[in-house]
């Protein structure tokens, strides 16, 4: 992904939009719903919310026009340029213009308005083009996009969350506290040198450190982590979990406790859970797992229990043969038992009590030993 030079972004999370005029290619309500759906695509993966106004100056003014239309980028007739939009800012910045010499449609028999609008609103929010072909922000229109299964690519999500962070609270959920919980007696202290964790997972570019009934939420854009009750985001999740890991290709975090596991997307519990851990292919002798992480590049998920580990093939969706193996064999320097583990910046971070081991999977060695709470800005 890329952002515009100077990285312009909105300094507020609530934005307004106005549909100034309409194309004659579609009924008005079809245009309204395509625009609304295109904004929802970005709303679902950021803290941003959008509301429509019908007069005056909105942050995102939406117009249909042909040829010369009052800015310095005249349209060019049917084909070639379909639309353009400007990065965040006042005046015409943030606005989205659609070439009405195109045939705008609800399907892909012409130019699909929803798809182009979702792309253009990526610009209105501060994203420039992506070099990834499957990304919405790739500059060339793909008429073969399967609209019934449209989803932002991980690159799109990484880009927009680089600018605005993740929702963790879906916009249509009841108001859920996002301010940190003040530390009460009995709650874990982030800078306690003896601090250990139950589980750690990445989530949409952030890192969640679970402990008892709480978790710290660490974003790379802020120094201070937030501190929350697990139940304030996921009421049906148990406390004192054993393990957690994110499968980014599914935009899902899996949470383990005892012989069960749950699936969450953002802060929404996925239906059909909890499931038994043995459905993953772990032997019945394993009563619970201690830690787990998923390696996006290798498309493998690692499960750690006592002094052993298993490896799950995310492509084949099955446990790999030849496991379990001894942790110390393949992760020399890491002390079993492992409390928690996650992968970021190409390193595996193992946590055991108040110690943290940074492991380089290429060099196959521990490169740093740190305090477990080093990520919490102590």
């Amino acid at each position, binding site marked *: 992904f890329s952002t515009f030079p100077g990285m312009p972004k909105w300094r507020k999370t609530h934005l307004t939009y106005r549909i100034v005029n309409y194309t004659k290619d579609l009924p008005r309500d079809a245009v309204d719903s395509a625009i609304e759906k295109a904004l929802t695509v970005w709303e679902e993966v950021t803290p941003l919310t959008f509301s429509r106004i019908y007069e005056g100056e909105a942050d995102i003014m939406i117009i249909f026009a042909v040829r010369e239309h009052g800015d310095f980028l005249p349209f060019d007739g049917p084909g070639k340029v379909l639309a353009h939009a400007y990065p965040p800012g006042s005046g015409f910045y943030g606005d989205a213009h659609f070439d009405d010499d195109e045939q705008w449609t609800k399907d892909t028999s012409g*130019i699909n308005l929803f798809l182009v609008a979702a792309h253009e609103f990526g610009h209105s929010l501060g994203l420039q083009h992506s070099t990834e*072909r499957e990304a919405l922000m790739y500059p060339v229109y793909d008429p073969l996009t399967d609209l019934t299964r449209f989803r932002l690519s991980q690159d799109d999500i990484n880009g927009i969350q680089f600018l605005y962070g993740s929702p963790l609270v879906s916009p249509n959920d009841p108001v859920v506290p996002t301010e940190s919980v003040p530390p009460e007696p009995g709650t874990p202290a982030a800078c306690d040198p003896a601090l250990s964790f139950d589980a750690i997972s990445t989530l949409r570019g952030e890192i969640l450190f679970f402990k008892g009934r709480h978790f710290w939420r660490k974003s790379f854009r802020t120094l201070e982590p937030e501190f929350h009750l697990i139940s304030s985001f996921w009421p049906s999740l148990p406390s004192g979990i054993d393990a957690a890991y994110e499968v980014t290709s599914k935009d899902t975090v899996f949470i383990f406790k005892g012989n069960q596991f749950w699936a969450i997307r953002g802060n929404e519990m996925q239906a059909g859970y909890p499931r038994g851990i043995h459905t993953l292919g772990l032997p019945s002798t394993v009563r619970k797992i201690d830690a787990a992480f998923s390696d996006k590049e290798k498309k493998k998920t690692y499960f750690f229990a006592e002094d052993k580990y298993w490896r799950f093939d995310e492509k084949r969706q099955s446990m790999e043969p030849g496991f379990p193996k001894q942790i110390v064999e393949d992760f020399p320097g890491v002390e079993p038992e492992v409390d928690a583990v996650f992968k970021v910046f190409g390193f595996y971070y193992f946590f055991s009590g108040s110690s943290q081991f940074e492991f380089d999977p290429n060099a196959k060695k521990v490169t740093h030993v740190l305090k477990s709470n080093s990520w919490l800005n102590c």
Partner: protein
Amino acid sequence: YPLDRAARDKEDSMELVQQYLENYYNLAKDTKQFVRRKDSSPVVKKIQEMQKFLGLEVTGKLDSDTLEVIRKPRCGIPDVGS
């Protein structure tokens, strides 16, 4: 002699690519750039930059894949620069 068809197509492709590179890859607007120095390195470099960005084989030449992609409908915002 009138341009034969192949030469005319080649001419059209040159103009199309020059326009594309000017619009989306910050190629300086110098109309003689192509005609006078069609293999000039600034243009070749820009073609390579465009091919790399769009995930094409980086040949620096106007091969059929490249011409096919630049004829596809797209967003009007540049791929590089402001």
